[in-house]
């Protein structure tokens, strides 16, 4: 079974991770732009970050047979930094036009401030202008309220709900999302967010429609193999393969294919590994 991890920050991961992910069946990854653990202080660092998500990282992934796409945005946390927010918003149109960009994201709420309201709305408009889906992060703190507010922002903007993926759901927020037309992402984490048995239980209760799973792995305690591990957990729980494949492959591909830029075929990857002398392989 081919798998997709539709939310993973590969820039923070090693080539050993890529090897293990490919061996576990992960064929496609989507890397949302987010923050880097400490605040950035210059707009120019976003240019280099976006450039890396569109160049170096897809190349690195291709060396292991993995297709890499990205989503770009000013993330909710840094939306609060008025020294950079305007500058990053001004950069985005040039980058959102690019071939490997399959959504605007992560946008949404962190502390649920007025600045976050403004940047969330502005970036939904960018998604509309560039005909891209939107990937919406939900906050760690005050999550249920943050999810309700996010759904309200989408509704008030008149943004098509089937083009919105609300991420990092739990037992409390999933029913709220499924009551709309938005898709529901779940980040399977070692200690926080969602875990494998709970995810299997949610699937048993709610089925597979508009349900997506990801590892959200980054530079923190996280696990890039959480998608295949959740597949195993769902099998153990007696969930049928069609349902599992819908959640771990068909749904994320269908959601991001709405960008018109998720080009998948059986052709070899764009820059497939061709020789052992390559710098990523060589180390």
């Amino acid at each position, binding site marked *: 079974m081919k798998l997709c991890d539709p939310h993973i920050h590969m820039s923070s991961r090693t080539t050993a991770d890529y090897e293990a992910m490919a061996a576990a069946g992960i064929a496609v990854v989507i890397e949302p732009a987010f923050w880097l653990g400490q605040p950035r202080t210059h707009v120019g660092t976003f*240019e280099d970050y976006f*450039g890396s998500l*569109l*160049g*170096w990282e*897809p*190349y690195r992934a291709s060396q292991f047979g993995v297709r890499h796409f990205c989503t770009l945005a000013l993330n909710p946390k840094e939306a609060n930094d008025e020294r950079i927010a305007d500058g990053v918003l001004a950069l985005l*149109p*040039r*980058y959102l*036009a*690019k*071939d*490997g960009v399959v959504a605007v994201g992560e946008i949404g709420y962190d502390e649920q401030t007025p600045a976050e309201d403004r940047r969330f709305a502005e970036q939904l408009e960018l998604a509309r202008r560039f005909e891209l889906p939107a990937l919406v992060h939900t906050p760690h703190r005050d999550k249920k309220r943050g999810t309700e507010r996010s759904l309200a922002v989408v509704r008030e903007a008149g943004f098509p709900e089937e083009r919105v993926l609300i991420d990092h759901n739990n037992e409390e927020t999933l029913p709220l999302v499924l009551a709309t037309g938005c898709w529901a992402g779940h980040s399977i984490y070692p200690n926080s967010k969602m875990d494998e048995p709970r995810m299997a239980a949610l699937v048993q209760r709610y089925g597979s429609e508009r349900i997506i799973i990801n590892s959200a792995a980054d530079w923190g305690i996280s696990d890039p193999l959480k998608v295949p591990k959740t597949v195993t957990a769902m099998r153990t729980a007696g969930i049928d393969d069609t349902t599992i494949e819908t959640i771990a492959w068909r749904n994320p591909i269908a959601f991001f294919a709405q960008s*018109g*830029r998720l*080009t998948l075929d059986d052709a070899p990857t*764009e*820059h497939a590994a061709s*020789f*052992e*002398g*390559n*710098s*990523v392989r*060589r180390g």
Partner: protein
Amino acid sequence: VSDALTIFRGILGSEAAALATDSTVDAATPYDAARFEMVFASAGRRLGITPIGGHTSITDERGRSWRIDAWGRDEVGRAFLLVAAIARVPSVDHVAWIDGCYRAGALRERTALLRALPLLPEPGRFLGTALDACRASTQPVFEAIACENPYPADHFPDASFAQLAMKAVFTGVALARILGLVSRHTPELARMADDYAAERRAAGRDVPADLTLLTTP
């Protein structure tokens, strides 16, 4: 260069005129940088990335030809856009404009730009961008400037050309793909190649067969 545009038009067929109009690089339209950037960025999904194949080659204004059959259709489209657009940009801005397109470019925008460099007016002005590309670890970017491209032999200083050749060896690129290698060979490059061969032998590793193109006879 007009020959290059003709060849590109031939490859792109009816898409060429549409690209030119949409990107505002045709003479009939006032040039709009934002529209150019949009079309340049989206050329991959518009044209696809299939290599053009055949034995297609291109000729510059000095009458030299080199093969471009490994270029993707998107790269042909982007090279076409760059060669056409630079005529719409004031000369004094050319270097900054090209470097800006490179820096803001996704992987295949960068490879297309590097492949188009020898077709731009006074290409020696873009040396900084070309040298930067040689430092990339993104192998397709390095190969776009180093392989099947006359630019380095035409414009690189000796030390940079030697670094390019040694990086090709180091990353497994066949030296035959570097245009003008013989004309730019230096004793210093031979010494580097000799040392590299010795280092490989000392480590019990094989020495690339084509390294003899560089080593001291």
